C-alpha cells in the first residue's frame, strides 16, 4: 500500500474508525482538537455516532453509557480534559466495560500551555481516579505506531473489558508523517453477552460499580486484580535498540523514546556502549525485561518530558543495584540529544567515581585522558 501523509491527530481518528469505533464523544481542547474534528466530518457519513459533549465530564460518561450497550465507544482529550475524566474512568474500570481514550498530552500543571509534554504519566499510568485499577496504556513514538496501536485498541478493550489509553504528546498529535493506513476491520453484529440489550427473554442485566459490604467490594477488587495480572502476563510491549552489549541504558517512552535513538547513536559514535529501552505499554510496564537488563548494565538514565514520573518506576525496578539518574525538560520543551548526552556523561562520571577496580567507562562527549 502506498504511504500517505497524515497529521497525528487525524491519523489516530481515522485509524480508530478503521479499527471499528462506532461512537465518539468529545470536547475540543488543543492540541487534540483535529481528532474530534475528523470524527465530526467522517462519522455521520459512515452512519456512526459523533457527539460533541458539553464537557469532558459528560463525554467520558457518554462513553460509559454507550459502552454498557456493547458499543465500541471512545473519546479523546488533552491533559486538563483528562483530569476531568478521572471520575468516569474509575467508574468504567469498576463496571468492567470496554472503552478507548486518547490523551494528547500538553504542558501542565494547571492550564499550562498547549506545547507537548509527558506530564500525564502519573494520572494515566498510576491512575488518578479513586480506587485500585489500571487501564492498558499504549505510548506510541511515531504516527505509524500510533495508528497500529489504536488499531488494536478495541480488541484489547473488549477482550479484557477494560479501558485502553493511547498516551501521546502534542508533538505526535500535531506533526505529519508518511504512514500506511490499515483497512476497515470486520466486527460481528451481535453484542457481547454482558451488554445491556433489553431484558427480552432473559433476566435483567445491570451494570454498576456499587458494592455495599466490605466483603462484596473486596471480591470485586480481587477479580479486577486477577484480570490485571492476566493483562500483565499477556500484553507487555517494548522495544530495544543496541542493548546487547550495552553498559549503559537510556529508558524513554513516546517522543523522547524516539529522540533518545539519536542520542544513543551519537554516543555510540563516541565509543560509549549505550542502548535504549523504550516501553510501548506503560501499563503493563515491562518490569521483568527491564529488571533483567538492569542486572547487566552499569547505570540507567531515564529521559522524559516531565520532572521524572516514569523515573520513579524505573528506580523501583532497578532496586538500588545500579545508579538510576534522570534528565527531563518541562513546560512544553522537548529534550534534544544535546540535553540527553550531558546527562549520560553525568551518569557515567558517577559510575566512575564508585567504580572500584573495574575499568573506567568511556564518556559520551569526549574521551577522558
Amino acid at each position, binding site marked *: 500500500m502506498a504511504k500517505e501523509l497524515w497529521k497525528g491527530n487525524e491519523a489516530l481518528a481515522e485509524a480508530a474508525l478503521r479499527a471499528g469505533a462506532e461512537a465518539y464523544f468529545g470536547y475540543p481542547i488543543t492540541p487534540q482538537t483535529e481528532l474530534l474534528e475528523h470524527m465530526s466530518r467522517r462519522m455521520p457519513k459512515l452512519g456512526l455516532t459523533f457527539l460533541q459533549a458539553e464537557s469532558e465530564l459528560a463525554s467520558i460518561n457518554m462513553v460509559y453509557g454507550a459502552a454498557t450497550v456493547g458499543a465500541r465507544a471512545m473519546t479523546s482529550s488533552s491533559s486538563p480534559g483528562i483530569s476531568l475524566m478521572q471520575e468516569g474512568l474509575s467508574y468504567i474500570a469498576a463496571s468492567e466495560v470496554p472503552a478507548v481514550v486518547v490523551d494528547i498530552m500538553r504542558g501542565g500543571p494547571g492550564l499550562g500551555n498547549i506545547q507537548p509534554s509527558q506530564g500525564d504519566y502519573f494520572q494515566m499510568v498510576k491512575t488518578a481516579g479513586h480506587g485500585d485499577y489500571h487501564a492498558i496504556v499504549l505510548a506510541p513514538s511515531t504516527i505509524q505506531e500510533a495508528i497500529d496501536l489504536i488499531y488494536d485498541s478495541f480488541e484489547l478493550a473488549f477482550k479484557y473489558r477494560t479501558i485502553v489509553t493511547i498516551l501521546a504528546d502534542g508533538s505526535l498529535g500535531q506533526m505529519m508523517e508518511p504512514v500506511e493506513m490499515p483497512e476497515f476491520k470486520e466486527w460481528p453484529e451481535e453484542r457481547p453477552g454482558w451488554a445491556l440489550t433489553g431484558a427480552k427473554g432473559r433476566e*435483567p442485566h445491570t451494570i454498576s460499580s456499587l458494592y455495599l459490604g466490605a466483603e462484596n467490594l473486596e471480591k470485586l477488587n480481587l477479580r479486577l486484580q486477577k484480570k490485571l495480572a492476566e493483562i500483565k502476563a499477556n500484553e507487555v510491549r517494548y522495544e530495544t535498540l543496541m542493548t546487547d552489549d550495552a553498559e549503559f541504558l537510556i529508558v524513554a517512552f513516546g517522543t523522547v523514546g524516539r529522540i533518545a535513538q539519536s542520542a544513543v547513536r551519537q554516543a555510540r559514535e563516541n565509543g560509549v556502549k549505550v542502548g535504549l529501552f523504550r516501553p510501548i505499554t506503560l501499563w503493563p510496564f515491562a518490569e521483568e525485561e527491564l529488571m533483567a537488563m538492569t542486572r547487566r548494565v552499569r547505570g540507567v538514565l531515564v529521559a522524559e518530558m516531565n520532572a521524572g514520573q516514569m523515573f520513579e518506576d524505573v528506580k523501583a525496578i532497578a532496586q538500588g543495584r545500579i545508579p538510576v539518574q534522570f534528565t527531563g525538560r518541562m513546560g512544553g520543551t522537548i529534550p534534544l540529544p544535546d540535553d540527553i548526552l550531558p546527562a549520560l556523561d553525568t551518569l557515567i562520571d558517577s559510575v566512575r567515581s564508585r567504580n572500584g577496580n573495574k575499568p573506567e567507562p568511556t564518556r559520551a562527549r569526549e574521551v577522558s585522558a
Partner: protein
Amino acid sequence: MAIAEPITQIAPDEPKLEEMEIIYQRPEAVAETYTHYCPGCTHGIIHRLVGEVIDELGVRERTIGVSPVGCAVFAYRYFNTDGVEAAHGRAPAMATGIKRAAPDKVVFTYQGDGDLASIGGNEILHACARGENITVIFVNNAVYGMTGGQMAPTTLPGMVTTSSPYGRDVKLQGAPIHITEMLAMMPGVAYAVRRSTHSVAEIRKTKKAIKLAFEAQLKGLGLGLVEVLSTCPTNWRLDPNESLNFIRDNMVPIYPPGDFKVHDELKKRR
C-alpha cells in the same frame, strides 16, 4: 438480596389467592424484592408508577434505566428491566450515550434533587439543549436524603437541615432552584411538568404525566421531564402522614404542580 416467599394463602379458612380476582398487583416492570426505602418515603410509589407505565406501554423488554447517586442509587435493582448505575449527576450524559448507541431502546433516568439540580446541573441542561430522546424522572424532596439530610438546591427558604442548622438563609445560601420551569424554556424539551405524591388524586396525575414523558420519547419528540414532589419523613423528622401534609402545606406553595411545557403532539392525544 432476599426475596420474600409469595403469600398464597392468608389464613386457613380464607379462599386461596388463586381463586380470587386479581384487582391490584405488582407491575411486571417492578422487581419482586424488598427496597431499602424508609417507611413513609414516596420513592416506592414513584417506582410503582414508572413500572405501571412501562407495562402499559409494553416496552419493558427494551427499557434501560439509569440510576442516580442518592436514595434511588439501587433503583436498577427495583426495576425488572436492564439498568445501570451512573456517577453522581451524570445520569443524563450516560443516558445520552446509551440512547445514541442504541436508539431502539427506551431510556430513562431516575434522579433526585441533589443529583439533578446540583452536581448534575450541566448534564441535564445539555441533555435538554440537545433534545435527547430520553425520559427523566426528577424526584424532589428538598433534601439530601442518603447522606443524612443536608441542604439541597431545592431546600425551602428557612428550612432546617443538618447543613443549614439555622434554616436556609437565601441571602447566604441562595434561593430554591425551579429547575423544571428553567428547563421547560428549552426547545429540545418536549414535556416538562411538576406533579406531587401527597394525595391519591396527585398520584394519579403523576402517573399520567410519567406516561406522557415516556410517550414523548417513543414519538421521538425530545426530552420528557417529570418533577415529582416526594417525602423524606426520616430527614424531615416528621411521621409519614405529617410528611404528606408538609408537601401540601410547605412544598406546593414554593413548587406548584403544573405543566410548563407540553409538546403539541402530546396535547392531541388527550
